């Protein structure tokens, strides 16, 4: 008797369904999702601020205007030095690493909390790929939204602080190209980082077994 062929493979569930399930879970835990997001917002805002600030200052230096140079010196800018301070790069790197760990931690906790839910979905016929998708979307959505807010916040703060220090000169030399590039760089770095942080929790979620649905809640 070789009837194993009579049982088909389980049908694939469309991405849109995984997306709406993830969105529902995010909305239910909106407060905690916000806290996770704030971590990302701060890290990315810091990165964007540094990039924006750098481009504006470089543009001002390039003006070679006497009164601007006075203002730059007052603000403590070394006019002769090129490029970004390596200490600053280290600081940015560390803050990004911290938000990466923050996302992973928050998502692992959220998976642990929902072991029973994952088991139940598997009892209903969910395959591993569906579980990976929903948790991956849920996690990276937080990261990408946080990145978006963070890069805008960093831009705003960067422009405001420079306006306070250098007044109208900022708009005379406003480095559009560099600023847009800074925004893109921050967005790509933030999104890649969030997506990387989402992989492990999503796979960990998919490792849960159908029998976990029977767990007695601790």
């Amino acid at each position: 008797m070789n009837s194993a062929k009579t049982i088909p493979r389980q049908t694939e569930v469309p991405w849109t369904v995984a997306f709406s399930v993830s969105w529902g879970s995010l909305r239910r835990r909106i407060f905690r999702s916000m806290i996770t997001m704030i971590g990302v917002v701060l890290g990315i805002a810091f990165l964007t601020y540094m990039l924006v600030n750098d481009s504006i200052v470089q543009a001002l230096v390039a003006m070679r205007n006497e009164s601007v140079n006075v203002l730059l010196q007052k603000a403590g800018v070394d006019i002769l030095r090129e490029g970004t301070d390596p200490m600053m790069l280290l600081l940015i790197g560390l803050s990004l690493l911290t938000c990466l760990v923050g996302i992973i931690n928050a998502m692992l906790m959220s998976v642990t909390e929902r072991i029973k839910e994952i088991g139940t979905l598997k009892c209903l016929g969910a395959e591993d790929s569906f579980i990976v998708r929903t948790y991956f979307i849920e996690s990276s959505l937080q990261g990408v939204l946080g990145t978006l807010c963070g890069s805008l916040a960093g831009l705003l703060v960067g422009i405001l602080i420079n306006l306070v220090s250098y007044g109208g000169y900022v708009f005379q030399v406003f480095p559009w190209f560099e600023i847009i590039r800074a925004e893109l760089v921050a967005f790509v770095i933030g999104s890649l980082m969030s997506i990387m942080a989402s992989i492990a929790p999503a796979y960990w979620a998919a490792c849960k077994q159908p029998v976990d649905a029977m767990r007695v809640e601790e």
Partner: protein
Amino acid sequence: MEDVILKAQGLTKVYTMGTEKVYALKGVSLDIARGNYVSIMGPSGSGKSTFFNIVGGLDKPTEGEVFMDGQRFGDLNSSQMAWVRCHKVGYIFQSFNLIPSMTALENVAIARIFSGRTPPEARRDASEVLEQVGLGHRLHHTPAELSGGQQQRVAIARAMVNKPEVILADEPTGNLDLRTGEEIINLLGKLQKDKNITVITATHDMKMLAASDVVVWIRDGQVDRVAKRGEVKIQVGTIDGNTLA
């Protein structure tokens, strides 16, 4: 000859705790006929839940085989097992296990979506089944807004929506008061008769016995006794007598 839907053969389950081996099941064999209402009774720690989970395709035995409709679970890959869980088996849990972020309708519809239906089709079928269990007026409430009995009805609708051949119910009345528990048992009994579904419950609830066609007692990882409907009726009195004393 009886039409056997589920066949368990020499099921053994060993858990390793440190260096010690614990036998949850010590070679259980049992045939379950199609359309029967089977209650599995046994004290906690008897291996009842382990047996139940293995027969339902939720867990794998250390040794032995389970056949559903002649199909050996051991021959199926994980995707095929997901298909079996989706199309052939409906699960009902003691703590209902509804997804808290979804409404009653969505909870039932998601099971239907797994069977390959589009979301609009799934929602239509889900509302039909919810209507049948008497929750037509509660479609858009979340589990938190429903009573225990209503939540269990949603869970029954979810188990029914893919027209399974077997329903596995793990202590379905365990978290419900007497009267609601009775309603749930009646609902399960009605579904079993109307749709010729095989219902298997793990329970300590004596009320379940009256509805059962077969009662299986499990003790120390082995089948202690199997009683058919006629014999059970006699047992109810003595057991009731014992529990009252």
